[in-house]
């Protein structure tokens, strides 16, 4: 049984990102559940780990990185579904939607 509803987890994660990972040149309003956090330069590898630890703390259950593909946890909506043990292909609006990168925000180098 999920202790936290998916919508609440999404809100909580977005708030955490805005508080801890928002670069000085990005507007908080641009951070949505569908954007790719890596492609938009919000997270690098260490930032992604920080986010995973936060989500695990919220749900009280570990995310099994032996099974989960890294690309599936770079979008808040997908991450929250995985964290709660839900299938990312069965999203609430019936489609798995990932917004393209913001043009002027380069990725964080893709490096660790």
């Amino acid at each position, binding site marked *: 049984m999920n202790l936290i509803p998916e919508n609440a987890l999404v809100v909580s994660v977005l708030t955490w990102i805005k508080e801890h990972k928002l670069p000085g040149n990005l507007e908080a309003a641009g951070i949505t559940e569908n954007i790719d956090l*890596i492609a938009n330069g919000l997270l*690098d*590898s260490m930032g992604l780990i920080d986010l995973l630890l936060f989500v695990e703390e919220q749900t009280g259950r570990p995310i099994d*990185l032996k099974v989960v593909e890294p690309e599936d946890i770079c979008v808040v909506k997908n991450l929250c579904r995985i964290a709660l043990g839900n299938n990312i292909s069965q999203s609430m609006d019936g489609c798995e939607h990932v917004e393209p990168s913001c043009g002027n925000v380069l*990725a964080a180098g893709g490096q*660790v």
Partner: protein
Amino acid sequence: MDEWSIELRNIVNGFLESSERFASRPALVVDGERLTYRDLRRPAGKLASLLLQTAASDSPLTAILAYRSVTAYAGILGILGAGKGYVPLNPKFPTERTRRMMFLSGCSQVIVGKECIGSLRELLQGFQRPLTVILPETPDATSLQKDFPLHRYLSSKDVCENRDSVFETDVPAQAIAYLLFTSGTTGEPKGVPVSHSNVQSYINYVCGRYDLNETDRFSQHFDLTFDLSVHDIFVAWERGACLYSLPEKAVLLPAKFIRDNALTAWFSAPSVISVLSKTKLLEPDFFPSLRYSFFCGEPLAASYAQMWQNAGPHSIVENLYGPTETTIAISRYKWNNNHSPGECLNGICPIGWAFAGQRSSIVDPDFNLLSRNQAGELLLSGSQVTSGYWNDSEKTRVKFVRIGSFEDTPWYRTGDLVKQDGSGCLYYLGRIDDQVKIRGYRAELQEIENVLRKACGTDQVVSVPWPVRDGCADGVIAFVSGQETLDEGDALNYCRTYLPSYMVPQRIYALDALPLNVNGKVDRRGLVRMLERVQT
């Protein structure tokens, strides 16, 4: 020929020979595709022929703008197969920096992967020198031709219709194999041309030391703009092994990729261990397939080496060291869980011994040789040491020197502070200048500060690596003063226009005044202490 003598040949020959011996074995796994040596040789040969047919200038170099795609690898082989050196460009770098690299290299040809068409358009904006743009996966270049008529475009149709597949592999030993740009103190990227003989020396050493063969599965974790990628690509293909290019997101968390693909040879910066250690994935025997694990690019903490060794118990773990100017890596230390922890200094793994055939010396500021256990600057010499900087005789004169009793050969001044123990083992102690390593990438703080001055409209700027974990920096924090109306967002945006993401400060703090030390210089350590206090 003994194993350390330099073989004068084009480094593409290793691939070509493997493509004869192991034609139907896998050579490359990338972007969801698996290519045999035969599969990969075909597009490489076509590109080599096309480059030879369309060379509009006598430039010895051709650029490649492609990212983790078949074109990226076939393009490199094609360029080398045309007897030219390759200049890797990175779609993740700011356009202005890429444009500058393109301009400085003097390239008149560029191969572009379909994943980089957007970056190409940005690059061509304002690029005034005519180029031949080769698009092996783009069937129609009409819109590019219309928007940027200065340049000539060859589409996938032109590549396919070219029936020739010719490799021009005869090159002088000193011909450039690749030109890489590193951070420069003046704000201008600094070109390091690396010759075929430099690279072949490295390949010969590595292939002689490590038992690698056609059944091995190599990681390709580094971007092509990082010279450590040359090890993955050319050592793998020299031995007939298969190269596994990690997808962009797997680069961040590579553990699953290593296991799923049963990789046998891993190469990355140590910060990968730092990241994975926080995921609880590095449990004992998590990577049973690994036979070799190489780490390079930044200090390797003993605790991380131990952790990785436990996760890959069948793997030989090697700490490699080497600046770009000395070709990939030039010294090595073999980790051993039993005795190595006792050989570490300040919890950092030694950088070991120079490769056989290469030489190291430790000198004081007047280039006097120092004795064992004395700390000084590390100088390197040998067949892997490059001949200087691209079109920059002044920087070459400063960094490539001739010393005392070794007047016959140039020595590269690494700027690294090291010492040597009684057995000759080298220990890295730090830098003698303001160069830092950020997630394995080399960066000059002066270059960052040059951009910051313009971004912030004040000369009073300083940057410090932060946070630093186990000797490795994750990023940079900037401090400025003398600018009361600083808009941090605007300033960061400006930085992003000119600096690669790893060099862009994470934050810019405005202070009333920058703290000074007793010598009247900006107190960088004081600023770091300030950050430490804020963190706690």
